[in-house]
């Protein structure tokens, strides 16, 4: 680290010092300000509904009923669906890249994935609304979905979107496993697959889990693509959490609500606007919890490797 080489005792005022701290301060202030704003502006909704805002299952703004539970359910189920679809493929591809591919080819794979990560969500949305929703509608015809706008459609689209995120992070985690462990296992006569499954994957496990969680957070925050294919149907609450049937129905996520027309309608009306900001706060909390857990796991993974090498 650079810092350790610098003499810590000599701190004098300088333009660089002042500007650095100033800009850091601005960045911090923006973060704190944004959070504060969410809290203050959403206050009317909390006052009006209390905890019912989070667990309430009904959202009818004309009657001032604000319950976010169906949207929380939508957000979570869609993100989990995306994760279930993307995690095996993403981690599988990362394993292939790290454990089997020669370096030159691995870089090619990595470039592909980096590019894939760059494709904007509105483009995914466009592909979703014009291609994917019809495809889902036809493929799952036997299950009689009402239309192509389903939680599943949103989940599949999100799965495609977070695939590069999972793969990049899984790739990092797997490459963090010391090469000596791999070499030792191969030296014993284990096959590349046995080495991958019994040495690399267990070693990288916290990192892989972190990859999945960070991608989950990303999926939960995605707006535009989901907005176009989820159907935006309010008040969808599954009769049973375990039932798969609701996946082929329309729904609403926190983000699709926030991106929708109600944000414009609510503007200027404290209670309704408060409810919208409240949704923002709930969304932020969910994402923060997931991201924190992911970051924590990543640190564990990193520490583990430090001990080893």
């Amino acid at each position, binding site marked *: 680290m650079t810092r350790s080489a610098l003499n810590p005792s000599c701190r004098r005022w300088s333009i660089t010092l002042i500007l650095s701290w100033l800009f850091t301060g601005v960045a911090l202030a923006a973060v704190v300000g944004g959070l504060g704003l969410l809290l203050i502006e959403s206050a009317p909704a909390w006052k009006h509904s209390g905890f019912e805002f989070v667990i309430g299952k009904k959202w009818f703004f004309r009657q001032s009923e604000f319950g976010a539970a169906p949207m929380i359910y939508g957000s979570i189920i869609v993100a989990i669906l995306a994760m279930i679809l993307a995690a095996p493929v993403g981690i599988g591809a990362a394993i292939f890249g790290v454990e089997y591919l020669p370096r030159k080819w691995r870089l090619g794979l990595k470039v592909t994935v980096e590019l894939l990560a760059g494709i904007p969500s509105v483009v995914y949305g466009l592909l979703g609304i014009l291609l994917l929703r019809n495809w889902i509608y036809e493929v799952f015809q036997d299950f009689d979905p009402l239309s192509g706008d389903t939680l599943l459609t949103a989940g599949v689209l999100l799965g495609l979107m977070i695939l590069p995120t999972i793969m990049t992070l899984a790739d990092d985690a797997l490459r963090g496993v010391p090469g000596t462990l791999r070499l030792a296992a191969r030296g*014993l006569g284990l096959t590349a697959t046995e080495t991958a499954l019994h040495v690399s994957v267990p070693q990288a496990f916290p990192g892989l889990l972190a990859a999945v969680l960070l991608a989950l957070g990303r999926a939960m925050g995605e707006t535009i693509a989901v907005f176009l294919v989820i159907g935006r149907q309010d008040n969808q609450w599954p009769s049973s959490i375990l039932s798969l049937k609701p996946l082929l129905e329309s729904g609403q996520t926190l983000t699709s609500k926030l991106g929708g027309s109600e944000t414009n309608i609510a503007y200027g009306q404290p209670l309704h606007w408060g409810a919208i900001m409240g949704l923002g706060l709930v969304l932020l909390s969910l994402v923060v919890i997931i991201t924190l857990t992911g970051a924590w796991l990543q640190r564990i993974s990193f520490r583990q490797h430090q001990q080893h090498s």
Partner: protein
Amino acid sequence: MLEPILQTSELSVSAGSKKILNPVSLDIPEGGVFGIIGPSGAGKSTFLKSINRLTELSNGLKVSGQVYHRGDPVYGVGVDTDNLRSRIGMLFQQPVVFPCSILANTLFGVRHLGKVPRKEWNNVAEKALREAALWEEVKDRLKKPGQQLSVGQQQRLCLARTLATGTDVILMDEPTSALDPRSTEAIEGLILDLKETHTIVLVTHNMRQTERVCRTVAFIGLRDKVGTMLATGKLTDLQTKCCEIPELEDYLCCELTEPIPKAKAC
């Protein structure tokens, strides 16, 4: 002379267009300890790893020539490299202990290779740990993590792990360079015990060690910046060749802080 268990024939290694090791042809007889000495960076480790094709796992290394293990070619289409490596074991400079228990470490190879039925595992582990002179020290804490052992013990654990797979050749890459003198002595003692039942190829820097344990040695030196095998034979024979091979002279003089009694002054 016994039938050679390992034979290298024009074995050379290059990385891209850069040569690392000039062709080496060596016969390594069955039983005993075969030493490989030479300055750092001369390609001793690379040579050792190319014997059981571990070089393939490093990026960009290309091996040509051939190695015969008990007469069977090592390089070639259709060679089962994994099976090969289970018969030609490897011990590294730093002990590499997997993050699991001592017992699981000992059985790490056995468990996956599938040669030994499950009910035999405990016996195999005990036998291997005894052979590695570790049994008495760890028999009460087999379920404890292997990483809690001292570095010297860890190296012996790695040896036990290799022995457990039923290997007949063990490649050792400076196995004592990370150890203190006491642990080094323990490992050297082990090598002397093991040479009755196994063939050991030992890369080392330590001339005393070479003298103590090796029957035959090969010297790999740097000639025109490329690793080249310059001499082979008994250590005493090598010392007589000192004056003919300047690299050998440089090496032996630098390595020896005090002259080995029998060494001729060059």
